[in-house]
């Protein structure tokens, strides 16, 4: 995490409250916000609020992480109800509970703490949680 406050600040709307963009030409929703639609190249968008529910497209469970100080957890690609894609970690679950096509909800958690440039900033971002009851 070698980046400074301005970078975190630029990304805040997308990572804090799941603001994405919907392409006016092809209707696809992209997250985080971008300048050019990665699907059709258009630059015309409207800002949208992503749904906080989705399903797991695929996942993997790393056991060996660089400094080994995080409990094994699942990393997944998730598709929201409005067709947007996100990538990130699962939380509040045993990693082996995660399965393809499983419904999940998106919650905001601590992702980490910045080092190197602007040190000690807490960064928050989306994680996925199986829907219970």
């Amino acid at each position: 995490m070698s980046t400074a406050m301005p970078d975190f600040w630029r990304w805040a709307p997308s990572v804090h409250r799941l603001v994405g963009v919907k392409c006016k030409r092809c209707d696809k929703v992209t997250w985080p916000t971008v300048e050019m639609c990665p699907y059709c190249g258009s630059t015309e968008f409207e800002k949208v609020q992503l749904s906080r529910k989705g399903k797991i497209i695929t996942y993997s469970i790393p056991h060996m992480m660089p400094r080994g100080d995080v409990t094994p957890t699942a990393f997944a690609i998730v598709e929201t109800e409005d067709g947007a894609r996100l990538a990130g970690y699962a939380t509040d679950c045993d990693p082996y509970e995660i399965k393809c096509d499983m419904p999940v909800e998106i919650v905001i958690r601590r992702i980490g703490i910045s080092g190197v440039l602007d040190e000690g900033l807490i960064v928050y971002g989306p994680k996925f949680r199986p829907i219970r009851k």
Partner: protein
Amino acid sequence: MVSGIVGYGVYIPWCRIKVADIAKAWEVPFEFPIEKTVPFYDEDSITMAVEASLNAIRHAGVEPTKIDAIFFGTTTNPYLEKQGSSTLASMIGTRNDAMLADFANSARCSTVALSACLDALNSGRINYGLVVGADMLIGRPGEATDYLSSSGAGALVLGKEELIAEIEGSSSYATDFTDTWRSEDIRLPMTTHPRFSRDYGYTPHVTSAVKGLMEKIGKGPDDFKFAAFSQPDPGYVMHAIRGIGISPDKVAQGMVSQFIGNPGSASVLIALAAILDKAKSGERILMASYGEGVSDTFSILPLGKIEEKRQNVVEDYIERKKYVDYATYLRWNRLLERVR
């Protein structure tokens, strides 16, 4: 115009630890089946506050852009200097001209936030306000606070229309009484002798505040069907109600500490939510918080709409659980770290 509650929400962490497992690690005999919450390693007061707030806002049925102010109370803000309410605002999506306020320094900060919100509503400055209390308390390993200190969050959306409950009045009683403290040199909270804390701290201040409230609004103990108290220790509550004339069955619904421990400023809001989950129109609720020699009390009257917007959030969150062991609890709370 009367102010009151439009919607409410809570957040209770998924992981729990049986207090008996903590006692066992210290070889202390302990028989009570109580548990407390354990925050996941990626949680803090802000993440918990956000979820409780979004739940409350959803229940209230208002758009985040309609919230005119956020009053956020916590004793465990992730930073020593950097306000939490602005991060909350970013995560909830309130307007740029919404007023943001952080409250801190004692377990009653959530009710201080509540009072401030009521003042803002009653003065006409705002139409909707969000009150949040969230804490991630860590107890001193092996001591009484280790058995009780936990995490959680509660949130209320207050307004003047479409109320599910009216806030009829409030009162406080304060002296400078230090029974919990923490400083830059003392990372985990210190506490005094529990009976001193209960008999000279909790009980007299809560009792005086409640009596003051009842005088002010002209009601007596029998006018209240339920009572929600801050629960630094469940025993304190049972001791205090004797002097107030509130019977144990009235507090039962709000006694969540046996399941979730003591989540600081969230304690009283979660107790209130547990009662709002069940209370019917007209079943008046007494709410009393406590923090270092100050108690804030409120009288809350559920209205008809509460039954239309019935939810069962506290039980739902309590039932979703997974137990962890003491070693995991220590590691996640950074009480057990690699030596560098």
